[in-house]
């Protein structure tokens, strides 16, 4: 039979349990709107020694690791599409012809100006219009290339930004791991720190696809980039983004004129003398890719070790999306625009030089020739490069061609070669008939929509395909963001439904705890009365 003291103990344990319940409910209410906070509960169990009261274990946080992991994966997918959408949206504005201004529109206008000239070959207004529309077309080529270039530069900057955020969060997780281990060893509550770490991990999962491996000591290991370690216990690696190969907008660092300063490939600086040799490092590769490395960096910021570069498709998250947009989508588009400019110049000049202007002159260029991007050495002393730099990997000959697109110097409207230069068939009187002939300008107009320029497809069709590809990929990215966002919302709702605080519930819990406290207090009051009665009896 329990003694009076034992009954008192029971009452006291009841008071303690109710106080714990009240404290936890109060803590929950105070943190009802704290982002990422998991509600805590007290687990009431009978005391270890039977019949001696109640123990309140806890606080214990209510979490759902399964839903949390699914949410992290979904956020990673959303981040990937968001990364792609961000870069592609920038590029799309460059190629958007829907407002009636753009490269395809300017190609059409140039062709139409040539057609109008064919109806009145001697007309100065029509000739001036050809020059004007050619200038507009050149401006659009440059604008498109510049737009792609800017998107790539911005994309590279953004990727580095995201990499920095990943590094920061990885560092936070590593630090929290240490704090959690320390507090767990000293017996303090670690739930709040775990909540904070979970929140950081969720943010990290949106930036890069991660695998989280919980450890027995409440720390977590994080792997990313296809199984590479990012956070190891209390240590983390630094994420860096670097370009591999010369960017389509980079100078390659070759010195063509031997003056000790690197020149760009197509800056037109003449060689000083025959045999000028390019000095400096040749480009390592003709391709351009952004890569990511995880590096161990010491306190002075020096890299002490680095893992091998990670391919973009292993990354996931926003970083993976940004790299995917750069490496897969953009770099070949900028290359195609350069190819369009390069081939247009070659084929158009071929026709134009074979024609005759109204002054009877022939062999007139229309566009300034664009040299093969690989030519770096002048062997015959004519000031024009005619051989590649020794040991250099070959770029496409049209690298950066759209940047160099220009009308030939001194081209005036009377020098447009609208007439044919074939005196045998038929023989045209240069003094009277050439000005009125339109044979060559008809051929030049047809060239714009001919499949000769782009080896089987037209200029317009080529650019239309670029626009379509970007539009479809942007649309796919937008749909991806929308879909993953919807999934993330659903999962997030599931998670907060289970782990977040319901003030109503906590109010009930507080009321019940209060009642239990009063009831436990009554036990003690009654035991006290019983003791007094006993004392009176023996006293």
């Amino acid at each position: 039979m329990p003694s009076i003291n034992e009954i008192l103990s029971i009452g006291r344990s009841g008071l303690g349990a109710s106080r714990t319940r009240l404290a936890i409910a109060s803590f929950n209410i105070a943190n009802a709107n704290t982002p990422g906070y998991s509600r805590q509960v007290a687990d009431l169990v009978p005391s270890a020694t039977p019949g001696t009261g109640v123990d309140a274990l806890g606080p214990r946080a209510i979490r759902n690791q399964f839903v949390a992991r699914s949410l992290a994966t979904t956020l990673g997918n959303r981040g990937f599409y968001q990364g792609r959408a961000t870069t592609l949206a920038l590029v799309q504005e460059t190629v958007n012809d829907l407002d009636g201004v753009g490269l395809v529109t300017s190609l059409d206008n140039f062709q139409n100006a040539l057609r109008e000239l064919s109806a009145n070959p001697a007309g100065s207004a029509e000739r001036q219009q050809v020059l004007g529309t050619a200038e507009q077309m050149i401006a659009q080529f440059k604008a498109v290339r510049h737009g792609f270039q800017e998107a790539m530069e911005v994309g590279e900057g953004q990727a580095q930004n995201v990499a920095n955020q990943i590094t920061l969060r990885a560092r936070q997780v590593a630090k929290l791991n240490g704090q959690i281990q320390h507090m767990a060893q000293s017996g303090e509550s670690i739930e709040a720190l775990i909540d904070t770490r979970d929140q950081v991990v969720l943010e990290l999962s949106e930036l890069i696809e991660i695998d989280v491996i919980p450890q027995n000591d409440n720390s977590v290991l994080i792997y990313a980039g296809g199984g590479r370690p990012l956070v190891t216990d209390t240590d983390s690696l630094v994420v860096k983004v670097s370009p591999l190969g010369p960017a389509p907008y980079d100078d390659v660092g070759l010195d063509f004129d031997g003056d000790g300063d690197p020149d760009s490939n197509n800056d037109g600086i003449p060689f000083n003398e025959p045999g000028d040799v390019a000095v400096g490092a040749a480009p390592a590769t003709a391709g351009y890719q952004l890569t990511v490395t995880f590096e161990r960096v010491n306190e002075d910021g020096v890299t002490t070790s680095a893992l091998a570069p990670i391919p973009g498709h292993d990354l996931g998250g926003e970083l993976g999306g940004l790299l995917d947009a750069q490496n897969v989508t953009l770099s070949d588009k900028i290359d195609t625009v350069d190819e369009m400019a390069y081939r247009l110049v070659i084929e158009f000049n071929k026709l134009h030089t074979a024609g005759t202007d109204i002054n009877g002159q022939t062999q007139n260029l229309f566009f300034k020739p664009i040299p093969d991007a690989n030519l770096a050495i002048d062997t015959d002393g004519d000031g024009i490069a005619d051989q590649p730099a020794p040991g250099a990997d070959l770029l496409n000959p049209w690298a950066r061609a759209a940047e160099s697109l220009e009308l030939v110097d001194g081209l005036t409207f009377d020098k447009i070669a609208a007439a044919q230069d074939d005196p045998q068939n038929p023989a045209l009187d240069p003094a009277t008939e050439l000005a009125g002939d339109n044979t060559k300008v008809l051929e030049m107009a047809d060239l714009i929509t001919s499949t000769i320029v782009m080896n089987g497809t037209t200029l317009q069709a080529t650019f239309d395909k670029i626009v379509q590809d970007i539009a479809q990929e942007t649309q796919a990215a937008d749909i991806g963001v929308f879909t993953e966002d919807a999934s993330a919302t659903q999962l997030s709702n599931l998670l907060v439904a289970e782990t977040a605080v319901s003030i109503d519930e906590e109010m009930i819990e507080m009321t019940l705890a209060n009642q239990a406290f009063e009831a436990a207090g009554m036990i003690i009051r009654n035991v006290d009365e019983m003791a007094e009665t006993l004392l009176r009896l023996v006293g």
Partner: protein
Amino acid sequence: MRVTNALIQKFVSTSTSGIKEVLFDAAKKISSGRVIDTPSEDPIRAAKIVRMDRLIKQMETIDKSYQRVRSDLSAAEQGLSHASQSLTEIKSMAIAMATDTVSATDRDATAQTIQGFLDQLLNTANRQQEDGRHLFAGIAEGKAPYSVVGAFPATTVAYEGSTVSREVEVAPGVKVDATVTGAQSFGANGEVFQTVADLITALDANNDAAIEASLNALDTQMETVVVNLASLGTRIRALDETNTITEDLKIQYMLSKADVEEVDVTAEITRYTTAETSLQAVVEVTRRLMSNSLASFLR
């Protein structure tokens, strides 16, 4: 399902932002009048809009060429018509002077009158359009096609224009001869003018046989002009018929473009109004949801 404070927050935020997206999209479409602003909104529609735009501009360019050629051919037709009338007048006068009863003085005076008509004919043949191009010169439009050597009453007319024509596209895939040469109008070597010049010489010389010969040649040349006039008329009619193709195609393309580009304003206004009503409903529901709590009842 547990309804927590965080869940209510998310519900409110998601609902209102979703509806506001719809409102913004509808307002954007109503103000711009276009279904899409960027290709990614509907890549297929965007490609069609760009394609229709290209075709419309192409039709407009072709139409400009047609207008120019039509104007040139019409002016040439007018010129030939005047020339035909002038030749008829000349013939009447020549017939009157072909009788024995007419004096040398009368023939001389008539020769001078016919010289005036010849000058008019040559002016017509060397006629220029507003931009300075010579109408009957073939592709040698920069120079007057007919020149006169000698003076009254003995003049020789030479053709210095081109016999080469220029082809111009006046309908999709249709190229026509866009110029008129002297040969197509006044004879391969300007025979019309030379015949009149010969008549003048004959009248001035009071030569009956030469007058008779010139009259016969004049008949032939009048027929040449009439035949060439008819041929020009046929060319103009064929040109007008091909232009109907261009016009029809242009209208079709414009309708197709409008079909895919322009927004149905009524539908968008309805969508906007519906979204507005939904937003008001969500706001009211939210107000009630957030004001009902046990905290109000438990003291």
